[in-house]
């Protein structure tokens, strides 16, 4: 049954999946580099963003308005959680802070369960029309929306870090925290900024995938894990690496599900994670880049 068009179909599915993982990986890497914290609640930002947009859309708001409001609300949620849970424990070790984000993740999942229950929700596709056929394989228009969001996010982050003064200040704080503090750069403010941005990015990702996935209160955990695997493949301190890692993971997952067994999909992500950590803990492109000193 392995016709070329089926393989192509698996590739397209993998690219779509991979773009989603890349987006979550981007949010994780950005937060990790700025704050030194791995935000385990990142997946929940995705869930809550999607569920909020679905509820807002159900009230009769246009999809674009529902999108913007949900993104802003989740960004604000990220900010509030940072101020209440992370900032108050700022003196604690990175491990403690990561465990706090695990707590936040459980808290947010519980909150989502209370508000939205265990039902499955969905959004209509952003644009009408049937799928596009290339070489006998289909790509839905929603996939292009997801590719677009990933490309835009990557370009936006790149422009921010390379072209703006604020971006360079953030980079400086990542390179040398003490020196950055001496310049008057306040790391606490950057930490807030990171959580605002990762809330917004997570929510946007969740809303973009809502038309092609089944949105439930607990979908965030696995997405967070996949995003983490994407970030680790890329080397955790590399924005481009996270995107590459995400897409690689998506394609591998799609092929393993299509060619071996769909039951192994999640197992593959974990196997890849263990493999990368054992063989190349610095990530696939980690050693080519200058290391953090």
């Amino acid at each position: 049954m392995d016709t070329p068009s089926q393989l192509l179909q698996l590739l397209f599915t993998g690219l779509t999946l991979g773009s989603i993982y890349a987006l979550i990986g981007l949010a994780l890497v950005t937060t990790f580099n700025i704050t030194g914290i791995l935000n385990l609640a990142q997946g929940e930002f995705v869930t809550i963003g999607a569920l909020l947009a679905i509820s807002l859309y159900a009230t009769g708001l246009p999809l674009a308005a529902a999108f913007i409001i949900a993104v802003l609300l989740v960004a604000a949620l990220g900010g509030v959680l940072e101020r209440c849970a992370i900032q108050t424990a700022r003196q604690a070790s990175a491990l403690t802070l990561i465990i706090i984000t695990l707590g936040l993740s459980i808290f947010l999942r519980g909150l989502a369960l209370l508000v939205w229950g265990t039902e499955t929700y969905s959004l209509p596709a952003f644009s009408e029309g049937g799928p596009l056929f290339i070489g006998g394989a289909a790509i839905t228009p929603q996939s292009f929306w997801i590719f677009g969001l990933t490309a835009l996010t990557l370009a936006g982050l790149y422009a921010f870090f390379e072209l703006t003064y604020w971006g360079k200040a953030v980079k400086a704080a990542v390179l040398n925290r003490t020196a950055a503090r001496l310049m008057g750069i306040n790391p606490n403010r950057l930490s807030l900024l990171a959580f605002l941005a990762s809330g917004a990015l997570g929510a946007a990702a969740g809303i973009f995938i809502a038309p092609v996935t089944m949105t439930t209160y607990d979908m965030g955990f696995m997405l967070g894990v996949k995003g983490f695997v994407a970030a680790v493949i890329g080397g955790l301190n590399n924005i481009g690496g996270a995107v590459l890692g995400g897409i690689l993971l998506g394609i591998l997952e799609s092929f393993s599900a299509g060619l071996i067994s769909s039951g192994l999909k999640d197992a593959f992500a974990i196997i890849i994670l263990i493999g990368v950590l054992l063989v190349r803990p610095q990530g696939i492109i980690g050693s080519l880049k200058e290391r953090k000193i």
Partner: protein
Amino acid sequence: MLLSIKSLNVYHGYVQALRNLDLDVKKGELLAILGANGAGKSTLLETLAGLHRPAQGEVMLEGKPITGKSPDYIVKHGISLVPERREIFNSLSVLDNLLLGAFHRYRSNKGTLSDDVAEIIDIFPALKGREREPAGTLSGGLQQMLAIGRGLMARPKILLLDEPSVGLAPMVVKEIMSTLAQLKNSGVTIILVEQNTGAALKVADRGFVMERGHITLGGTSQDILSDSKVQQAYLGRKRMQTAAAL
């Protein structure tokens, strides 16, 4: 008095790094703080810059207390630290390093920052033409000049320097010291921490010797230079090495 420090006590965990330290700094002075490793010199500068919170004591800048304030508050109010080991942003360009030095006044001075950078390049002409290079590729001496330039970009009233001569060739040390003397003449108040006692006292107005967290000797550079204990402990006169070579 521009800066006045009264009975300052600072701890690193259970270890007391500064003990009842008093120091007054007049406007336009160049002070040298000398002493062995672990005497508390760096801790003093880092505390002034806001990196450590003192347990007791008071620091007043132009009569206003700045004790225990955060580094961003302190740099905004006129104290800039050029840290030990330079701590430049290696993978950022020389230009970006300098521009980030002006972070606290970026919003209000955006338009004039390029003039300020040009002024810094005038002070350190060796940096000319290398503005676009990653700062980490510069030699040690140039990195030190960049670090001082970055500190000056904050437009400080007081510039704190933590061992700018470490690891540099004597010629470069000489150049940096003479630049500090020029900066002093242009009105910047400087507190210089040095292990290179001879070079520091050559440009300083006053010198202070620190031992185990407090100042044990202070006076004009001449007084300090001629003090027999300083000659033995820090200038190595006994071993017939003269500091004059510096």
